[in-house]
Each structure stands twice: as C-alpha cells, then as structure tokens.
C-alpha cells in the first residue's frame, strides 16, 4: 500500500510552475522528510496531497488510491499547516471541544491524556501557550483524529531545540503506537537523520531525490585521493560533488561500500546531511528509483 502516489503531478500559479512533473510512490508506514530550498515547491506538494490545491496537470492519490481531497481521503489524513494555526482566543479545552465536534472520528480520552502528559493546562488560552506547547497541541489534535497519514508543513521551523526534540519524540511515539505514515517538510536538515526513513528532495519545483534513507546513504560514498587522478573518476563515476585542493580531492559518488576502488584512494560513508547538501548544491543531479523514464523528460 502506498501512502501517497503521484503521476506527472504539476501545479502552475499564473505563469510560474510551482511543481513540475512529479512522479512518486511513497510506501505506507514511513516517516518521510520533504526537503528543499525556499520556493522549491514543498508546500505546493503538501497542499496537493491534502487536497487544498488542485493539480494543473497529473494526478495525486493518498492511502491506497483515494483521490486527494475526496471525503475518504480527508477522513484518513490529518494536516498541520505551517506555524500550526490555532485560535489564540480559545482555551485549550474549547479547542478540543471544537475539534471534536468538527470531526467524525475523535478520541477524546487520548487527546486529554496526551495533554496531561505534556502538562498543558486545559483552561489556558491557546495564545498564552509557548510555541512548543502550541505545536504539541496541534499535533495532539491531529493524532486524536485517528488518521492513517499525518502531513505537517514545517512543523519544526519556529521551535527552539528542546521543543523540537520533544515535538519529534511525541510524533515518533505516535508512529510507534499507531503505525501512522508521516510526511513532513523541513529545512532543518541536520535533525532528519534520526527521524526520517524516507527522503524526498525538491529543487526548483522538480523532484530531485526520492527513496528510502538507508538505500540512499548506502548508495553513496566519498572517495578521497590524489587530486591529479580526479579526471579518471570524472568519466567513470560521474561524481555528484567534487571538492578539490592542490594535492587532495574528495568526490561524492554513487557507489556502495562493496565496490572496489583503486589503491591510494579511500572510501568513506556519507551522512544524510552531507548527502542532502550535495544534492541541493547540484540541482541537476537526481536519484529517482522507480519509473526511470520519467526522470529526464524535458531537462
């Protein structure tokens, strides 16, 4: 089963393509990080998956083929928009009451016990909560709807490091308990490695990288050796990123640990952050498993 599937998904705002020709199949049960620079199309992709935006071209379905935005799709998805919009003048208790009455599925006991665990007072006005507490409240509301897929737009952007940690801990606990699928966008690349097991990189409205984190990390190495021999590799391995000094060069290449390398060179594993940064620096490089023919269209 796929949590999200898109085919040739594109969205144009007036004359600008916010997202172009995006073909994806994200398996269910994953924690998916969506990264990319500002304006890369992250929010557009999320809004399309939720059904807040309609595609200009292509299709998007969620939770095993339900058309995005349809009633069946909406009942299975919880969406937390950027900055976790809540009503600042309502109390926490009133916010729960409101959300409970606006939703068909709702687990009141669960919501109340989560807020108690987090020591968020029910009588406090939402506007008086800290940023971290507001984010946790939004997550509580999302999870209490008993969704199969939670989509979060930049949930970490305005949180301090401790609040980020606690928020992610809560989210991961929900994943462990309910087997949720999660899709969240972020530009905090450093913290993704612990949390995400599936990575999507968007760049300038195009899909650049999509795949399981383990496969991506295992499929890339940094080779270090004499700079004079770099040209040898340029042809053979088409390095993704070359860092070259007078005598020494570091090449990030697509190869696994078992690949043989010449004497005088060492091969070291890459971290997820290093890998993401390398791709963000080279917007034309792609790793896209699946229907490979779609990758290079009109490039």
């Amino acid at each position, binding site marked *: 089963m796929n949590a999200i599937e898109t085919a040739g998904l594109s969205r144009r705002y007036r004359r600008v393509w916010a997202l172009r020709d995006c073909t994806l199949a994200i398996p269910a049960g994953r*924690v998916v990080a969506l990264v990319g620079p500002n304006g890369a199309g992250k929010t557009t992709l999320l809004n399309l998956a939720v059904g807040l935006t309609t595609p200009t071209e292509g299709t998007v379905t969620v939770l095993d083929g339900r058309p995005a935005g349809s009633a069946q799709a909406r009942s299975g998805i919880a969406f937390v928009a950027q900055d976790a919009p809540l009503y600042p003048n309502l109390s926490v208790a009133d916010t729960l009451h409101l959300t409970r009455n606006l939703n068909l599925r709702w687990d009141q006991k669960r919501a109340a016990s*989560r807020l108690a*665990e*987090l020591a968020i007072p029910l009588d406090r006005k939402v506007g008086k909560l800290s940023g971290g507490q507001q984010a946790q409240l939004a997550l509580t509301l999302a999870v209490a709807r008993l969704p199969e897929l939670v989509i979060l737009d930049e949930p970490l952007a305005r949180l301090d490091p*401790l609040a980020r*940690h*606690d928020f*992610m*801990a*809560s989210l*991961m*606990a929900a*994943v*462990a*308990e309910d087997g949720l699928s999660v899709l969240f966008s972020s530009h905090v690349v450093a913290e993704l*490695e*612990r*949390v*995400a*097991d599936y990575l999507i990189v968007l760049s300038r409205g195009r899909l650049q990288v999509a795949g399981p984190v383990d496969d991506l990390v*295992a499929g890339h190495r940094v080779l270090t050796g004499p700079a004079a021999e770099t040209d040898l590799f340029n042809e053979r391995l088409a390095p993704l990123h070359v860092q070259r000094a007078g005598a020494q060069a570091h090449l990030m290449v697509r190869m696994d*640990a*078992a690949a*043989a*390398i*010449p*004497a005088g*060179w*060492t*091969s*070291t*594993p890459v*971290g997820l952050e290093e890998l993401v940064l390398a791709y963000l620096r080279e917007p034309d490089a792609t790793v896209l498993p699946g229907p490979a023919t779609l990758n290079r269209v009109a490039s």
Partner: protein
Amino acid sequence: MNGGTGESSGPSPIAFRLEPGSGVPTYLQLVQQVEQALRLGYLEPGDQLPRVKDVVGSLAINPNTVLKAYRELEHRGLAGGRPGQGTFVEGTLGRVGLPQQTELRRALTGWMRTATDAGLDPDGMAALFTAALRDFTDSAQDESAQGHPVRPSRRPARPGRRDEAEGVA
C-alpha cells in the same frame, strides 16, 4: 513523553543514549550499547530491552530504527522478541577474562614502544591500528581474500575483536 533521559521509565534495566556526532549509524549505536551492557553485566539473559515506544519517546528517533537494532541483536543471537511483550535478552557475550586482557594489553604496549622508537606519535598509532584492524576484519569476512582490501567494513568488528580495540583506546 517527558522527553527527559535521566528518569527511569519502562521495564528495562538499561536506557539508551545517542552520540549524534559519532558517525555511527543510530541503530548500530543501540546495538553496541546493548552489547556493552551485556559485557559490563548491566544486562543478563531474561532482561527486557527498552520498549520501542519508550526509546522513541525519549530519543526522538524513528521507531523503525529501534526495530532494526533489535532485529540485528536477534540476528546476532543476543535477543529475541516475545509477541505482545517486547524484546528480551537471550544470549551472553563471552567476556574476555582479566588475565587474558592483561596479556593482550602487554603485547600492545610492547608494540607501542616499538612504534614510538620508529617515530610514530599516538595519533599515528591509532590510525595505523584502525587501518590494520579494518583490513583484518575485512579479510576475515571476505572468504575470497582477493581484490583490494580497501573496503572499510560497514559492519563493526565482531564483538570478540572489539575488545582488543577498546584495549587501546
């Protein structure tokens, strides 16, 4: 969900911690900490490993990472899952006896003296040792001992061998 790491929550005698900058994959850090706890006697057969939900709720890591670590421990014969209950320690790690450790250490100290005489500083020794250990484990793993021994092992050295490594550090 207090996010705290110091409080003992859950039924396990141990709690995990992470070293983000170590370069060791998260699941391997968990595996190594269980092995270490077994060697040091914090864990014994029959003990429960921390529940996935507890680990995830305190370290903010992906549940699949914990599951992967526990699968690896099962694969190494050190732990086993009990449906509906959790994962429990099933194996032991042969601890190297103290006399044997002393002997190994003495041999290494002798080597270090030779290395110092040859002009190697401690960092140089560590680098040389690490490289030699890597080749050693690689050649033990590759039954066909041909080709370039340059592949750094993606798996860590096997438990018995890492004792030697720790003797140096």
